[in-house]
C-alpha cells in the first residue's frame, strides 16, 4: 500500500497504530464503507425486499427529479429548514452565550436553564410542544384567548408549521451555547481593552473583536448544525407527521416513508444519495466561504 520502503521500527509503529485503530477499521469497512457502496447500488435498482433487486439504471433519479412532485416539495421544505433554522439557532445560541459570559450573580443557574432543553429527548420534546402549541388549552393560546385575541394555529397551519418546528430547534441550543461559551472565554482581555482605548463602544467591540475571535467555533457549529438539520427526523415525524399538506415533509421523513412504509428500498436509496450530495455541496460551500470570514489566531496576516 505504501510505496516508500519502511524501516523495521516504522513497520512496528505501523502495526501498532493499525492495531489500536482496528475497531474503527472493522466498523468503517462493515458499517460505513459497505453500506455506502450497497446504497449506491440499490439506488440504481427497483427493490422491495421480497424480490431480488432489479437494475434499472438512473430511473429512480429521473423519477425523483422529473415526476415526483412530493419530492420537490420535500426538497423545498428541507432547504427552508436548513437556511432559516441553522442561522436562527446559531444567532440565538451566540447571543445567549454572550449574555452568560458577562459577570453576574447566579450564572451557573442561568447557564443550566438555557442548557436544559437540549437534554430533553426528542420524543418527550414532541409531546411537550404538542401541548404547548395546543390551539385550545396550550399555554400560549389560552393566554391569547383570555385576552380575547385570535388563537395561533402553530403546527396545524401550513404557513406556521415550519416556523413552529424551527422555534423548538432554537429553544434547544444548549450544545452550541456550551461551545460558544468556551470560545468567548478565550477572547483575550488585552484585545478588548485595546479596542476600548481606541474608542470602540460595546457594540463595536462585540462586532469587531468578539465575533471574529469566535469564528472558528461559529464555523464548527454551523457545519454540524447544517449536517444535522438535513437529517431532521424525529420531531417532524412525531409532532407534525409531515403535515399539514406536506408542509413539514422533510427529506428524512419522506425517505423513511419510502423505505419502511412503501418498501421502495431502491427509490429511498436514491433519495439518500441526493441527501448525501446536498450535504457535501453545502459543506463545500461553507468551507469555501470560510476562508473569507473565519479568523484563526495562529495565522499571520
Amino acid at each position, binding site marked *: 500500500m505504501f510505496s516508500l520502503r519502511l524501516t523495521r521500527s516504522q513497520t512496528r509503529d505501523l502495526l501498532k497504530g493499525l492495531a489500536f485503530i482496528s475497531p474503527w477499521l472493522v466498523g468503517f469497512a462493515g458499517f460505513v464503507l459497505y453500506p455506502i457502496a450497497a446504497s449506491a447500488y440499490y439506488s440504481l435498482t427497483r427493490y422491495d425486499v421480497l424480490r431480488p433487486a432489479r437494475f434499472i439504471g438512473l430511473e429512480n433519479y429521473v423519477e425523483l427529479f422529473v415526476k415526483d412532485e412530493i419530492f420537490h416539495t420535500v426538497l423545498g421544505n428541507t432547504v427552508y429548514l436548513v437556511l432559516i433554522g441553522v442561522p436562527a439557532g446559531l444567532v440565538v445560541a451566540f447571543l445567549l452565550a454572550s449574555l452568560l459570559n458577562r459577570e453576574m450573580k447566579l450564572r451557573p443557574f442561568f447557564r443550566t436553564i438555557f442548557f436544559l432543553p437540549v437534554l430533553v429527548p426528542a420524543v418527550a420534546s414532541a409531546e411537550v410542544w404538542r401541548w404547548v402549541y395546543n390551539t385550545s*388549552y396550550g399555554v400560549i393560546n389560552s393566554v391569547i384567548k383570555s385576552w380575547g385575541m385570535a388563537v395561533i394555529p402553530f403546527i396545524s397551519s401550513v404557513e406556521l408549521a415550519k416556523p413552529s418546528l424551527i422555534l423548538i430547534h432554537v429553544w434547544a441550543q444548549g450544545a452550541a451555547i456550551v461551545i460558544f461559551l468556551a470560545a468567548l472565554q478565550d477572547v483575550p482581555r488585552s484585545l478588548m481593552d485595546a479596542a476600548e482605548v481606541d474608542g470602540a463602544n460595546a457594540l463595536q467591540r462585540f462586532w469587531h473583536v468578539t465575533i471574529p475571535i469566535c469564528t472558528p467555533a461559529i464555523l464548527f457549529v454551523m457545519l454540524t448544525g447544517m449536517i444535522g438539520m438535513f437529517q431532521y427526523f424525529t420531531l417532524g415525524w412525531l409532532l407534525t407527521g409531515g403535515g399539514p399538506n406536506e408542509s413539514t415533509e422533510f427529506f428524512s421523513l419522506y425517505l423513511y416513508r419510502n423505505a419502511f412504509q412503501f418498501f421502495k428500498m431502491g427509490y429511498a436509496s436514491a433519495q439518500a444519495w441526493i441527501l448525501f450530495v446536498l450535504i457535501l455541496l453545502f459543506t463545500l460551500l461553507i468551507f469555501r466561504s470560510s476562508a473569507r470570514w473565519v479568523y484563526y489566531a495562529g495565522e499571520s496576516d
Partner: protein
Amino acid sequence: MQRVQAAVPAAATPFTQTTPYKAVQRALFYVLMVVLALVFAGPLLWMFSTSLKTDPQVYTVPPIWIPNPIRLINYPEALSSRPFGTYAYNTMRYALGAVAGALISNTLVAYGFARIRWPGRDVFFIICLATMMIPFQVRMIPLYLTFKNLGWLNTYMPLIVPTFLAVNAYYTFLLRQFFLTIPSELSDAARVDGCTELGILVRIILPLAKPALAVIGLLQFMFAWDNYIGPLIYLNAESLYPIALGLQQFRTMFQEKLMWPYMMAASTATVAPVIILYFFVQRTFVEGISITGLKG
C-alpha cells in the same frame, strides 16, 4: 463588558460602582435574564405543572401554573397503564451497552490516532473525520438489510455492536484532541521503562482523561436515551421498546381522551433521568467540553 462608559474612571471596579445609570443598566440586564430564563424553562415548567393537575385545571383559561390540589397520583396511574418499567429497563440496557462500547472503542482508536506516530496515520484520520459528513440515511437501508440477514432485528445488537467499533467519529475526534494535550514526555518516559502502549494507555493516559471520557459517556448515553429512528427501524416487539418508542405507546393510548396530565407525567418521567444525570456530572461535562479542543 460591564465597563461600557470608558470615560468614567471608577468603572474599573464593576460591582462597587453605583452611578444611577449603571445601576439601571444592571437591573435591566437582570430583568432580561430572568425573562429569558422563564421563556426557556417555560415548556418544561408547563409540562411539569400539567403532570400534577386534575382534569378541570387543564382546561382553564387563562392557564394555571401552580396546580391546586396537586394530583401526584397522575404519575403511578399514567406509568402503570403501559409497561414503563420495562421501557426504562430496556433503555438502560441499550444505553449502558452503547456507553461501554463508545468508551472502549474510542479510547483505543483515539490513542492510535493521537499518541503513536505511524506512516499513513493522518490519511486514516482524515477519512475517519470525513465519515461525520455521511448522513445516517445513506447507510440506513443497507444496514437494516444486513442486520435482517444476520437475524439481529428485534435485538439490541444493531444498536450496540456499532458503538464497539467506534463508528461515531465525533467521539473519536473529541478524545483524540484531548489525548494530544497530554505531554508526550509522560509516554516517552514510560516507554523507556519498557511499558507497552496498552500499558501507557491504561496507566498514564486514562487516569488523566477522565473529564473527556465523562463527556463522551454522557453524550453517548443521551444519544441512546434520545435515539428514536434506530429503535424504530430495528425493534418491533413492544417488550423490547426503549422509552423513546414507549412514550408513543402512551400517546396512542391517551390521545383519544386527551389525557394531558397523564401524557405530561409520562413525558416528565422520560426527561427526568437525563436531567438528574446531568446535574451529577455537570461540572465534569462543562470542564470536559472546554478542554477537548472545541474552543476553536
